[in-house]
């Protein structure tokens, strides 16, 4: 399923931008008129005079060999440009994922196990958190922690690991906000649902220690829905990262994609889309694999619905 999915996705990306208005020759020449001889040379070099499917094949073949073409605005290899930015995005998504897993699942499990004031306030906090878009979270965080308190820098990547972590903290929190709320709420619901099951009541009434019941029964059985929602929301961060990168002026793939879309730098748009879609599909596949490992009843490749 994975290669098929990616193949079709790559075709969609190529076809969409192939159909985009504007001729590639005009883009290459910057709109200046060219002598017919050079037009012919360019057409041959970029296979522009060949049929659509052949052009797709050349593009895909090159992409698989790490050659994603030339950026028209920066006159550089798209692969090189992507390689220099990919770690910003990957680091940001990874940092946000850690926050979501630790805080989101932690809060969900605690409030699921202990009904009461803590649970009620956690419900309110997560309902608000799930409704704060990343760019709204970004401006609030910049206002509080960069402008008022001065704890973290407001903009930029920073250099060196320690500085990177400091620069990425507010963006990662902004990126995590919505998912944190969603993951915590789904975790709480799954833990609560398992805790109400008859087998748990039986285990408790037989006098098993609460710790054992929680670890061996409740958390283990609630793990599948929790893993699924965590994986889906983390995968979605790969695209939302663009919003956070723009809000914090981070030099990542997402902000570069937005810039390329505005300037119609199509080779860059194709290249980054391909990388992001691949990452998105791979993360979703990892979630399926993890679910199959957690629960032997789940089999891969079968109809998941």
């Amino acid at each position, binding site marked *: 399923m994975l290669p098929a*999915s990616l193949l079709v996705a790559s075709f969609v990306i190529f076809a969409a931008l192939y159909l*985009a208005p504007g001729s590639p020759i005009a883009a290459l020449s910057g709109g200046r008129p060219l002598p017919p001889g050079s037009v012919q040379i360019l057409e041959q070099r970029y296979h522009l005079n060949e049929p659509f499917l052949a052009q797709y094949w050349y593009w895909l073949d090159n992409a698989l060999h790490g050659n994603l073409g030339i950026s028209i605005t920066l006159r550089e290899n798209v692969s090189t440009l992507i390689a220099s930015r990919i770690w910003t995005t990957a680091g940001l998504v990874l940092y946000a994922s850690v926050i979501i897993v630790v805080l989101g699942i932690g809060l969900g499990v605690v409030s699921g196990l202990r009904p009461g004031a803590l649970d009620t306030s956690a419900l309110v906090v997560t309902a608000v958190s799930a409704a704060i878009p990343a760019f709204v979270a970004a*401006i609030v965080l*910049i206002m509080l922690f960069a402008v008022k308190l001065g704890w973290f820098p407001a903009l930029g990547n920073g250099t060196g690991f320690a500085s990177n972590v400091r620069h990425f903290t507010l963006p990662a929190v902004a990126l995590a906000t919505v998912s944190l709320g969603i993951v915590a709420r789904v975790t709480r619901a799954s833990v609560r649902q398992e805790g109400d099951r008859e087998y748990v009541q039986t285990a408790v009434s037989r006098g098993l220690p609460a710790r054992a019941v929680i670890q061996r029964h409740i958390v283990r059985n609630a793990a599948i829905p929790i893993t699924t929602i965590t994986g889906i929301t983390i995968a979605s961060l790969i695209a*939302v990262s663009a919003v956070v990168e*723009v809000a914090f002026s981070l030099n990542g793939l997402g902000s570069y*994609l937005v810039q390329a879309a505005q300037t119609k730098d199509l080779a860059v748009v194709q290249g980054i889309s391909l990388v992001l879609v691949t990452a998105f599909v791979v993360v979703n596949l990892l979630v399926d694999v993890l679910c199959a490992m957690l629960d032997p009843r789940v089999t891969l490749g079968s109809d998941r619905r």
Partner: protein
Amino acid sequence: MSAVSTAGAAARPWSRGLASLRATGPAGVASAVVIAAAMFAAAFGPLLAPYNPDLPNLSLAWAGPTGGHLLGYDVEGRDVLSRLLAGAQTAMLGPLAVVILSVTAGTLLAVTAAWRRGASDAVISSGLDIVFAFPGILLAVLAAAVFGAGLPAAAIALSIAYLPYIARVLRGAALRERSQPYVAALEVQGAPAASICLRHVIPNIGPLIAAQATILFGSAMIDLAAISFLGLGVQPPAANWGVMISENQVGIVQGYPLPALAAGICIVTVVIAVNVLGERLFDQARAARR
């Protein structure tokens, strides 16, 4: 849910809708009121705006709230309250269009797949799997690169990107509904498939569709505002909540956070209301199925 849809309830969807809204409790009703107020602003906002939302006056840039201007002025000296009211239009109607498009298409695909099963189901399901590979924001950025920046392209891109999420859930519900005895009874009586689907199956999964549509509205609002924030959706100087945040973001660092914050609060309030109502509707739909 009762297996047979009674003719009376189907004939009065409004009264049934009101009754189920009342059953969502005070939080649900309060959320509905917030949504209704935002929809009212979307419909009449430009008329309600006390000042011209698009008229800049640079000498008043970042001026704070005064008597006639409750929320002060923005980066170009425009009245913030007027821009919020005028901006409600695209901020609310954009997500509404996304929900209508994707829920209609998603319902049709889901019911078709569940009804015909076999090859049609396989084609629809694998098509949805392909669409699932594209996150909403990425598809919207692609659409902007191909068709140029603007709200219509972004809204259509999001409607497509949301299809798998909505159709998968509805397909499961429609499959359950299709195996109910009343469907078989109607088939034996010779009722045409289209009429069984339209008059019985879809109304019976209606509560689930309503819950999905509500939750989807929240996601669409966040994603569309994000795309406008990125400069690929509604184009400035047009008033829009997402655009207002990107225009006034410099004010945060310069000590004038109110214009950007006000737009952010509008988005967050509506999304909270939509999510709370959607969650209640989901609980209702789930409870009704038991």
